[in-house]
Structures are given as structure tokens and as C-alpha cells.
């Protein structure tokens, strides 16, 4: 196996809110290989965004970040701003959920693209404009020359996300972190943007992290999936394994909540209960209060990360067998109904 492109080790993020510390990310270990596509899923508030914002030093000053993030040999936590500025956009680019509000409303699309090109590739004038046109073309924007002159508010959300992707590609990054890039878009546009991300990755060889709360979105677009719950990684596996043989009750719950396209229609069972507040997490497994197979030790002792297959890790005391969902147990469903 090749050396990882980016490696997170014990990444921990605390927010100080009015004197109260709350832990949004708790000791995350994760690696991504060059060119790999990694999906990160989890309910809202599980720490998916904060993990990657922390890695790039993009959190507000009140956030306390500990642990390590390495880009190849370069440590990114606790380094001077100058070092991070050289990494952002050039080595690791990031795009966000609401593309229309991520573009500056007072600058033309062309201006914003050229800014990135000047920054990362040293292009100016005609050369920068030509490259900007090429990038817009690459992300499938018709009439690129006119779009360069447009302001973001004149473009649809889907077009703006394409512009964001073009801007991310301007730095020819080794890794693109796409944080829910399609959540704000409607279904057909969503599929187009995901297809664009996939094809761009194949063409450029960059690695991709696709963050989503929707396992379905992640399923078709990545090689490997990491599942986060309440600031921790609970399961990590190659995509096919995860869908066929999820071992963590939380992952199984997410899968059970997916509408199935084949077979008989099932009732969609959302996982009962809610994510614990970051300032009030259980001592043991954070999922224990919602877990249908939780035992005493689950409540009290944090579970270890355990290898359960080839590159498949689950952080759970209960060694649930592959292919057997805890949510199909008779006692799981009445609970779900309450």
C-alpha cells in the first residue's frame, strides 16, 4: 500500500462556548491515499465538516485543535499561517455546501477564478483568462466567456458549484474536500455535480473526500467510506463491504434508513433518538443510548477500534456478525416506533 497522502492522528477539536468546552471532534484517526475517493458520512453535527476545517486551519480562533494532520511529511496542526496558506487551494482544496454564498457577491466570476490562478499558478493577464476559460469549459459551463463577466448572483446554484469546482481545480490540488457539495441543489443537478466530481478525479488523479449525511450519495461515488458519529469515527470500510457487511449498529441503522431500489418496499426506519450534545456525551460508546444491542459496558467503556475485515474497522464492543443487521431484531422496531 502506498504512503498516505493525508493522515489524521488523534485529531481533536474543542469549542469554547461561554466558558463551557464542548468536544466536536474526538480523536479521529483517518488516512487517505493519493488518488483515492473517500466518503465521510454521519448525521448532522457529527463533526464531518469540523474535522476538515480543522485540518486546513479554517476554524475560528475559539476552536482548540489538538492531534496531528500530516500532508505527506508536512504537519499542518500548529504551524504558522503562511504554511497553511501554501497548502490551501494548492495541495488541498475545499468546496462547501452552499455554492452561491461561497462566491464573493461583489466580484465577477472571472476575477475570482483569476485570483486563484495568479495565486497558485502565477498566471496573469491573457494567460490567466485563457486558463479560466479552459477551467469553466472543463467543469461543463457553456458560454464560458460570458460567464467570466457575470456576478455570482446571476448564476444558478448548480452553475455556482461548477464555478467553485473550477476554482478548486485552478490550484491543481492533490486532494479535494467536497463538504456536502450537493445538499443545496436539487436532485438532477446533484447527480450532475457528483458525476462531474467523479470524472474530474479520474482525469486529474487527485484524491477526493466526499462529505455527506446521505449514505446513498456517497455509495456510488467513492472507494472507501468512513462513518462518523458524535465526533468519533465508528466504522471505516471499502464501499462494497460497508454496504454488504456493515458491522456497527449505527452504520446498519443508516443503511436501514436508505430507500431500497430493489426488492420489496420497506418502511423507512430512521434511527430513533438524537445525536448527543457535544458538551454532554456518554462516557462509553456515544451511540449506546440509541443502540438496540447496547450492554452495560457500552454505556461505561469507550469501545476500541477493531479490525473486522480487510481494511474494515468498526469501533464497537458488540462484535456484530457480517450480514446481520441489529435493526432487524424483533426488539429494535418497537423502539423505533416510540
Amino acid at each position, binding site marked *: 500500500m502506498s504512503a498516505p497522502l493525508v493522515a489524521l492522528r488523534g485529531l481533536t477539536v474543542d469549542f469554547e462556548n461561554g466558558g463551557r468546552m464542548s468536544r466536536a471532534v474526538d480523536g479521529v484517526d483517518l488516512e487517505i491515499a493519493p488518488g483515492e475517493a473517500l466518503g465521510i458520512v454521519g448525521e448532522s453535527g457529527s463533526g464531518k465538516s469540523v474535522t476538515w476545517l480543522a485540518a*486546513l486551519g479554517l476554524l475560528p480562533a475559539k476552536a482548540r485543535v489538538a492531534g496531528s494532520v500530516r500532508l505527506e511529511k508536512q504537519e499542518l496542526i500548529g504551524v504558522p499561517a503562511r504554511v497553511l496558506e501554501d*497548502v490551501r487551494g494548492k495541495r488541498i482544496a475545499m468546496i462547501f455546501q452552499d455554492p452561491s454564498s461561497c462566491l*464573493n457577491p*461583489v466580484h465577477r466570476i472571472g476575477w475570482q477564478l483569476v485570483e*486563484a490562478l495568479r495565486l497558485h499558478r502565477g498566471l496573469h493577464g491573457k494567460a490567466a483568462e485563457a486558463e479560466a476559460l479552459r477551467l469553466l469549459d472543463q467543469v461543463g459551463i457553456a458560454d464560458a466567456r460570458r460567464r467570466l463577466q457575470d456576478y455570482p448572483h*446571476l448564476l444558478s446554484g448548480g452553475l455556482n458549484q461548477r464555478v467553485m469546482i473550477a476554482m478548486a481545480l485552478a490550484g491543481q490540488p492533490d486532494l479535494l474536500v467536497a463538504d456536502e457539495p450537493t445538499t443545496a441543489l436539487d436532485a438532477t443537478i446533484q447527480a450532475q455535480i457528483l458525476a462531474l466530481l467523479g470524472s474530474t478525479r479520474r482525469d486529474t488523479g487527485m484524491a477526493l473526500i466526499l462529505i455527506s449525511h446521505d449514505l446513498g450519495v456517497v455509495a456510488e461515488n467513492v472507494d472507501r467510506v468512513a462513518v462518523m458519529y458524535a465526533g468519533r469515527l465508528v466504522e471505516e470500510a471499502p464501499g462494497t463491504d460497508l454496504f454488504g457487511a456493515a458491522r456497527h449498529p449505527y452504520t446498519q441503522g443508516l443503511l436501514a434508513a436508505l430507500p431500497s431500489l430493489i426488492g420489496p418496499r420497506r418502511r423507512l426506519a430512521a434511527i430513533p433518538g438524537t445525536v448527543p450534545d457535544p458538551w454532554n456525551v456518554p462516557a462509553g460508546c456515544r451511540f449506546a443510548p440509541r443502540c438496540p444491542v447496547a450492554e452495560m459496558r457500552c454505556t461505561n467503556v469507550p469501545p476500541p477500534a477493531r479490525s473486522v475485515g480487510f481494511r474494515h474497522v468498526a469501533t464497537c464492543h458488540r462484535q456484530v456478525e457480517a450480514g446481520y443487521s441489529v435493526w432487524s431484531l424483533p426488539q429494535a422496531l418497537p423502539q423505533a416506533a416510540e
Partner: protein
Amino acid sequence: MLTFVISRLLRAGLTILFVMTFAFIVLRLSGDPALLIMSVDAPPEAVAAFREAWGLNRPIWEQYFSYIGHAFTGDFGKSMRDGRPAIDLVMERVPATLAITMPALALKIGLGIPAGIYAALHRNSMADRLTMAASVAGFTMPSFVLALLLVLVFAVQLGWLPASGSGSLDHAILPIITLGTGGAAIMARFTRSAMLEVLGQPYIRAASAKGVNWHRVVSRHALPNAAIPTVTIVGFMVGSLVAGAVVVESVFAWPGIGRLLVSAVANRDLAVVQAILMVIATWMVAANFTVDLAYGWLDPRVRNATAH
């Protein structure tokens, strides 16, 4: 764009007409100018002659239309006190008023905006708290109180500056500081909150994620956006410059429009009061008009909305 300008100009004209009408009605309702301006025991023939001379014996609506009609040609009547054209009396006071209000405006903008930006960029720091505390003090204090305080300290106690009057540069300093302080405080608060609002926007984080350094994020991404709401408040300040000078000019006996207004009101010099109100209204309307144009220039979203 042209229709936009024309509609704004029309609206500006209507506003001025409205102010003139309002001033006319209020001034006529508040008493008979002939009786007020002559002494109480003046002989009736003298009062009648005064009315005749100033056209006050004509029907009120006739007076109104003749007033508006003349105003259109730049004629605001003659001062009832010294018989000179009212507008000349007003215009010769304009330079004195500008001599203290313009430096005061520069102070408001030059001090308030940088202080607000600095406070926003160093939110919750000592400097931010100090700036905000100073700005609360600055805008809660009425200008005449500040004026008296300044006089007490710099004129009476230290004897550095004259307490009132005009004629030298020194005379202008205290009025300028009095006028500028409150405005600078408002400017600082407003700029700070505009800047904080912008710094919290997703495009700021996106610009950082793109690799833009913080200095450039602030200067090229945040400031142009924060300028949009800030322009409103600058326009408001420019608009209220002349009106705002009334109190300060009176306290410091500064011979500007504000002091003329106070004495004209006290003397029931109708034509002069009306001319001053007209000048103030025109000034405000012009300031608003400029703000609207600046908005279109700064904000592409507004520009496109008005173009269609």
C-alpha cells in the same frame, strides 16, 4: 440606469417641494409675522403698511403660490429684517458652516471607519472593548454637553483654545471636535458590525480555503462588501451635516447657517428661515441621491436590479 436617475431626481424634487410647503404652513400657523416682528404697541397703520409691503395681506394660497413660483427662479424673498435677498444671507454663511462641518466629516470617516474595522478584526480584544466603550460614550453624550466639557477643559482650565467666536483657525478646533466625535463613534460602531457581519459570511471562509492570505481576504474580499452598508451611514452623516451644526454653532457663536437659523427663527424672519430649510433639504436630498448612486456602483446585485 437613465430611468433610475430620472425617477430619483423627480422624487428628490418632490421631497424638496414637500419640505418647502411644510415650512410655509408651519411658519404661517405659528403666528402673524407682522405682529411678531413689529413691537406690540406699534401703531395699526404701521402694521398695515408692513403687511402691504411684504404681501402678507394677500390670500394665504396666493402667498404660497407666489412663494413657490419665485423659489423656482431662485428667489426666496427678502429678509424682513434688513431687506436683502434671503438666499444671499444664507449663502454667505455657507462657507463658515462648511469650514467646521467638512473637517468634522473627515474626522468621523477618518477616525470612525478605521476604528470600526480594527475593532472587528480584533473582536473581543482589549482594543475592541476600549473602542466600543469610547464609542458608546461618544454617541450617548449630547453635543452641547460635550461642547461645554471641551470649553471647560481646553478654554477655561488650560486656556489653549478660545471658548467661542471665529476669526482664526484656533476658533474652529473645538466646534470641529464636538461635531466629529459623536459621528466618529456612530461610524465606528456601524463599521464594526458591518465588518463582523461580512467576516461571518461563507465567501470569506471560502476565500481562505482557496489560499488567499488573511490580509488580502480582509482588503479585497471583506472590505468591498462591508462598504455597502457603511455607505448608507456616511450618506446619512453627509445629509445631516448642515442641520447638525445648529447646536454647535450656537454654543460656540460660530457664524454659520445654524446660528443664522436660530436668530432668524427668534426674529420671525420668515424668508430667511424658509431659505435655510430649503438649503438644508436640498443638501439632504442630494446626499441621499449620491448614496443611491454609490450603492449601484458598489453592489452588483443592486446594479442589476435597477437595470431591469
